[in-house]
């Protein structure tokens, strides 16, 4: 056991971070660093898992076999992302079962975006384009996060995400170039998802009190507002290319800053959704709880099967 005092350990820890040396599970780390990461990684894992629900809603109603296969593959990827992340959080000492219980009791948070309903097929396009697009913006800097297992999980996730965004944009651009009804459907979808997608980057930097510490620890590499601006700058052009209108009358190119100016975000709505009062919060949690309860027999059967196989091996 180390005989160094806590200040020395903290100083060495920060020196490692400053030198871009990754922190691995058995290395010494400040309790606050561990807690921050456990919270962030488990919330991220919950988001991947809950994120399957809005799209799962359309698997049986996909317009063709091809689209159905693609959507299934995407949703299966999201399950995988959840698993990579729960595993990464477990390396910090997270108890997976109780973390999932926290999600089901409403104690743990997940991304606000998944509390919005998916009302039309066009939403499958918009979600891939905007929601996975925003997730990629958030996740690319996390590939360089100071905690090794989280960074490695993010590398895998980012590799898989680019297909998610492309398949979504393909749906969007097909509909946008389709019949007037199809174009209307996808414009309506963009109108509903644009602002919630911008909220995915979290509160403004002034209202994000823990950000500075996360930046110092290199858990966070870019601020919420920087990422949001980057997302808007690239997405506006994509919308123009397919002839869709971003639902923001204040959106305007700013020659001086080299960025788009945009309208005010409704933070009251964001806070309501985070606190559990979004359009689908209850549905999502109910669906998760039901999945766990109704799937209990599968887990029991797996245990029974493992027992049986063990006995068989012993008698041979």
């Amino acid at each position, binding site marked *: 056991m180390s005989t160094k005092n806590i200040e020395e350990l903290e100083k060495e820890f920060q020196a490692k971070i400053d030198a871009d040396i990754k922190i691995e599970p058995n290395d010494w780390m400040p309790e606050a660093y561990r807690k921050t990461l456990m919270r962030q990684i488990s919330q991220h894992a919950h988001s991947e898992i809950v994120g399957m629900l809005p799209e799962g809603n359309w698997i049986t109603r996909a317009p063709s076999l091809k689209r159905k296969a693609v959507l299934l593959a995407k949703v299966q990827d999201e399950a995988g992302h959840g698993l990579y992340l729960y595993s990464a959080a477990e390396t910090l000492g997270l108890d997976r079962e109780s973390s999932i219980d926290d999600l089901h009791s409403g104690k743990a948070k997940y991304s606000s975006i998944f509390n919005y309903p998916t009302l039309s097929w066009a939403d499958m396009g918009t979600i891939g384009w905007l929601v996975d697009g925003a997730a990629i913006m958030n996740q690319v800097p996390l590939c360089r996060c100071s905690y090794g297992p989280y960074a490695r999980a993010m590398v895998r996730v980012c590799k898989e995400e680019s297909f998610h965004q492309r398949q979504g944009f393909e749906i969007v651009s097909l509909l946008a170039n389709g019949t007037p009804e199809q174009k209307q459907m996808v414009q309506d979808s963009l109108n509903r998802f644009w602002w919630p997608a911008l909220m995915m980057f979290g509160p403004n930097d002034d209202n994000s009190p823990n950000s500075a510490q996360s930046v110092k620890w290199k858990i966070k590499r870019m601020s919420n507002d920087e990422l949001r601006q980057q997302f808007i700058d690239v997405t506006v052009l994509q919308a123009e290319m397919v002839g869709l209108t971003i639902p923001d009358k204040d959106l305007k190119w700013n020659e001086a800053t080299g960025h788009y100016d945009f309208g005010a975000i409704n933070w009251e709505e964001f806070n309501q959704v985070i606190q559990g009062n979004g359009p689908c919060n209850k549905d999502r949690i109910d669906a998760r709880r039901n999945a766990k309860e109704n799937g209990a027999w599968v887990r029991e059967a797996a245990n029974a*099967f493992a027992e049986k*196989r*063990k006995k068989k091996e012993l008698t041979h």
Partner: protein
Amino acid sequence: MSSKEWPLWEVFIRSKQGLSHKHVGSLRAADAQMAIDNARDVYTRRSEGISIWVIESKLVTASDPDESAELFEPADSKIYRHPTFYNVPDGISHM
């Protein structure tokens, strides 16, 4: 409802014939065979592997990071183990 939590497994994948198995992550499963089945779905959805090893995480013994200085120091001081330590006269090749 079953409260028995499945053990944690470390997963190693050989990406192609001729390369060694490499650690890719971990997962939970009721036994080794199911861990392999799950690893197939979680870690090889895009043909990332042709062979999978799993080992229960609790069976892994790891070196202590607090002692890594002492543990690895002997190698640091033995620079004569590297070819660059030696002078080879100009004009000598294939060495």
